[in-house]
């Protein structure tokens, strides 16, 4: 494992925890939803770092080159990149939906402060 990998993993863990901390301490629901996106960014960094190899080329194959020939030179792992793209789509959907709900909370409750939302208890 290279220094680059280790630092990427540390950044990924840091983002996940920073997002969690942000949600836990949030005073504003829009802020909380964005913190959720920050936490999710940690998963992007992790996935990309998992597939990265130093000195490898991008996983783009010329249509005429058979993959087994191209495979002799190292390429970075395309699977995690596909996963990251899927993850980004998921994130966009969930964030949009949650922000829409936050807008409704602001309209119906007149506040976005979770400390003032006390209608669901016990």
């Amino acid at each position, binding site marked *: 494992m290279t220094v680059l990998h280790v630092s990427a993993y540390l950044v990924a863990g840091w983002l996940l925890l920073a997002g969690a901390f942000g949600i836990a301490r949030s005073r504003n629901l829009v802020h909380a939803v964005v913190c959720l996106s920050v936490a999710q960014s940690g998963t992007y960094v992790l996935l990309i770092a998992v597939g990265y190899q130093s000195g490898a080329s991008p996983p783009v194959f010329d249509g005429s080159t058979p993959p087994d020939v191209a495979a002799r030179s190292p390429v970075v792992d395309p699977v995690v990149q596909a996963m990251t793209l899927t993850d980004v789509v998921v994130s966009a959907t969930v964030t949009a939906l949650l922000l829409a709900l936050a807008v409704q909370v602001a309209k119906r409750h007149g506040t976005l402060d979770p400390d003032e939302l006390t209608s*669901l208890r016990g």
Partner: protein
Amino acid sequence: MAVSVLAPLAVGVPIVGACLLLVVGRWAPRPLVDWTAVATAAAVVVLDVLLLLGSAAAPAGHVATWLGGWGPGGPLGIALVADPVSAGAAVLAAALTVAALVYTWRYLDSAEAHFHALLLLFLAGMTGFVLSGDLFDMFVFFELMGAVAYALTGFRVEEPSSVQGALAFGVVNSFGAYVTLTGIGVLYAQTGQLGLAPLAVALQEHPPGAVVVGGFVLVLTGFCVKAAIVPFHFWLDDAHAVAPTPVCVLFSGIMVELGLYGVFRVTTTVFGPVLPEADLHRAFLVLGTLTALLGALLCFLQRHLKRLLAYSTIAHVGLFVAAFGTLDPAGTAGGALYVAGHAAVKSALFLVAGSILDRYGSVDEIDLHGAGRRARLLPWLMLLAGFALAGLPPFGAGLGKAVAEEAVAEAGAPWAPVLFVLVSAVTGAAVLRAACRIYFGLGSRPDKDTAREDTTGSGEEAEVGGLLQRIPATMLAPIVVLLAGGLVLGVLPGVPAAFAVAAGHFLDRAGYLAAAFGTVAAPPAPPAASGWTASGVALGLVSAVLAALLALAALYRDRLLHPPGPGRRVGVAAVGRLRGLHSGHIGDYLTWLLVGVALLAVLIGVPVLLR
């Protein structure tokens, strides 16, 4: 038609149906929308039943389908794998969707086609989740299921509590899902595999290090959140209390249980021989017991009917965790039976609660004291369902409880029957108490002022235009059919044997791997089936009687002797503290989620690594 095309069809058909509804829903009259949605869900039931029969008939009990022209031999490709338990869960999901859609017919007058479309998408997400043979696909379907669930929870956007509950549900569940994805990334970094079967093979090759165990704990987190295992459970009571009733049916009946499916699919199939079974067993027993006791206690304290039922779901999830946590065929069979029986009863109860809301404009047990004296059929159905929830023979829930408690006791927890009887009796008693108050006006009229922690059910908006004068047949029929289904499950003679075989296949790791790799494996030895035993019937009756007594004691509380002063004060303070934790605050819930990850690490990670 080959069996292997059924799995992709079962996922695809509801998605196509949902798209169709979204396109034509704007112009189509409401009956057409209703019929299309019900027909689509019914078609999925048929597909799932065929898949169930196909997988049960397959020699090794599994049917694998490779998508996109990839085959089992190659290094790439994604499989859908059905075994009797996953196909059975899919059948349950589709059947409950049909019930929910039929109930929606008159309920939710204002619902436009996109409500139906969301329900169908939710069905697609659930079906894909159980049939997926790939960890990343499980995450994607988990998030599809999740995103649709948030939208359904907050469907009535004009209701302040609806949007609040949906937002908390969304943030907590999505964060759990991202923790799971982190775990998937960690496991992929270790093994280079995402398919459940290749991952299982790769993990087998080296002893579990800290990274693999850490990955396991992270992957489990998201599923535990969905399954509402304590302390991941906080979102559930808020979401159930505010979601439209047909949605609650799907949440309590199957979505929460699918979280358990994820937990135990990963634990048994992927990590089966890698992690020591004794440690896992103990961890699940601890988590299950905690969940069951907390859920039962809080269930009994509620006055908001839907919240009461939500906590009862948490309590039962605890019992399911204890049953599946035995990791042996008997416990798994009992757990699966209990899940199926519980789904029938709990769904029926949620529909009763929805009918109460639409008839009387409230779901608050105390406000509605005696409000339903003139109702004819529903009171008896609610009482019956309360007793069934408590485990009264011969209901399916009672049969599942009987099989499960015996299996857990045999797996090294001789006190398990006490836990099962107590928890099911308390949750049943809460329902009986509410039924007696609302429909029979029993009990002394409780004072109207509420404890500080209480959420009352009187602010809920009815989900129809005006209050109903009588409950229409489309709302009654699903209740009756669901209860009848729960009864059939308990009395049909072949049921325990069928569930035992299914549980054997679920735990048959070699069979799963063989199906996924396209090789042949010997079918597992058919496990011994246990159905109703004398002790099971007796304990079921004890629970039912105990539930009735507890309900009466709660109704006539003020005529009973009060316990001595100081003890009572301490008890009230402790319970108040416990209820205060369920604050509806997103930050609190997320903190508890992190505590839960730490708890999982301590319960599973530390013993495994110290070995």
